[in-house]
């Protein structure tokens, strides 16, 4: 696989950010979007990975540690190190924490479907965690804050109505390599920033192995393709391999449905989200 010149550099220069500026905007975003709809608190699933650790850090700065509830939801095959990393973040930030082992309900369900593969089980776990977060949201009057980054959202590397579900998402416009920069500057423990990204549905799982490419490479391509609308020919001229470009474009296209509300059959003169268009922040 060929790549543009800069893979040897720690950060692809166009994706380098000014962390203080980005942090200030995202902290303001959380504070504003949570409070103006009448909430003070947020609830998030804390996996021990860099994305949720960063969101917990930003939410803590925005709302204070007592207004952040981190729910740690391991399954029996999750890497125990992930749980330890999550608890380290909880301790460092001084936030509220709730631990719920999701093994009993997952195992009870799959007793009826013992042949289910890992992917199906992984999706079920992601949705189980979502239902717990929304229940805790109701119980503790906190908005569910999302932790999906732009790379995942574009590639569809997430479970619809699972980890992709949230009320607000502060990091959905940051590529993974930008999340790393911001997390590092925001004080997320270095071991968490530097560990190999993993959905942690089973021990040893790796995002980059599953995706087939390194995040640094994918983010560079997405930067040109999505942010600057380069054509396939222009991308090839930059040095990206054609197969790589086509694979990423296909993933972005095939997962478009995950980024949208369900398609509604058009009948009336004003259909929700098509010609009935109101801002979410209506009256706030």
């Amino acid at each position, binding site marked *: 696989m060929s790549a543009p010149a800069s893979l040897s550099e720690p950060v692809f220069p*166009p994706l*380098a*950010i*000014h962390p*203080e*500026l*980005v942090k*200030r*905007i995202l902290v*303001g*975003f959380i504070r*504003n*979007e949570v409070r103006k709809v009448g909430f003070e608190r947020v609830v998030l699933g804390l996996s021990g990975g860099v994305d949720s650790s960063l969101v917990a850090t930003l939410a803590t700065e925005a709302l204070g540690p007592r207004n952040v509830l981190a729910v740690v939801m391991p399954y029996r095959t999750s890497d125990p190190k992930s749980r330890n990393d999550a608890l380290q973040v909880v301790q460092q930030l001084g936030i509220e924490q709730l631990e719920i082992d999701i093994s009993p309900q997952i195992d009870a369900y799959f007793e009826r479907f013992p042949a289910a593969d890992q992917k199906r089980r992984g999706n079920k776990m992601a949705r189980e965690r979502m239902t717990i977060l929304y229940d805790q949201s109701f119980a503790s009057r906190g908005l569910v804050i999302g932790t999906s980054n732009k790379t995942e959202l574009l590639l569809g590397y997430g479970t619809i109505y699972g980890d992709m579900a949230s009320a*607000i998402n502060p990091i959905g416009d940051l590529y993974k390599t*930008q999340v790393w920069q911001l997390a590092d500057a925001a004080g997320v423990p270095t071991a968490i920033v530097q560990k190999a990204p993993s959905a942690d549905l089973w021990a040893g799982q790796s995002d980059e192995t599953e995706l087939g490419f390194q995040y640094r490479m994918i983010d560079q391509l997405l930067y040109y393709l999505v942010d600057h609308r380069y054509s396939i020919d222009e991308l090839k001229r930059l040095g990206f391999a054609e197969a790589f470009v086509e694979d990423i474009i296909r993933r972005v296209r095939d997962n478009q449905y995950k980024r949208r509300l369900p398609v509604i059959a058009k009948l009336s003169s004003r259909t929700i989200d098509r010609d*009935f*268009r*109101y*801002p*979410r*922040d*209506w*009256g*706030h």
Partner: protein
Amino acid sequence: MNADGRLTVGLAQIDPALGDRDRNLERHREWVGQATAAGANLLVFPELSLTGYFLKDLVPDSAIRLDDPIMGELAGLSTKLDVVLGAVVEDPDHRYFNASLYFSHGELVHLHRKVYLPTYGMFDEQRYFAPGDRFRSFKTGFGRTGILVCEDIWHLSSAYILSLEGVDMIICPSSSPGRGITTDERLGTAESYNLVCRTYAQFLTTFFLYCNRVGFEDGANFWGGSMVIGPNGDIIAQQEDADEALVLASLDLAQVRRERLANPLLRDERLELTINELRRVLHERTRKPF
């Protein structure tokens, strides 16, 4: 204007509530009170300050008509100082405009309907608004002034027309969402506006007041950065961050005369040549076979 030929201007860098006209009117009263106490002669509010920006289908519900009783309340804000504010204005033929209104001594002096409605990227204004059809300057107690709303300034001709009308000051109310992250400590949008506003002030040798809003709507952040620029292009006052703020500046109005003596760009402008050339361009465009 004060006896010493100076004018104190205020920029109300506020965070309007989306689609809540009553609450925003109340906030306008508070800011007018603050600016009056600070000695301001002119107070500028951002684009759509009475309604918020990303209104979508709330546009008709948020609109005012020039014969509405609320017009009396808005005019009443200007008894002690001149006030520029932003509102959705519905014409009698039920077209809705993104408008900026200038009030002085309890009267509406000027109304500018935004001409250039951005409809690309994150913007969708032409879906909801009708475009204005003119750029006109008007007389104030401290000289000739013109208003350009946000996207209007991204078209060179708009400021050029006002300049040839002889304005001493251009007022630009804005609701500019911040975007473009790099290693720079400012957003790309902030850099661009600083460049454009300063360029206009220096090229047209006029004071330039840029008032941007702050806050968030549906996840978009408004970056503030409101600034007062002198006719030599220097920034006289600026609120660098995105917090609510009253930006105050004392202007020496005679600076325009001195600047135009030093740089007689306006004197040397060839209006007739420009019109002739534009007419030729138009003629040639319309004669293209396909």
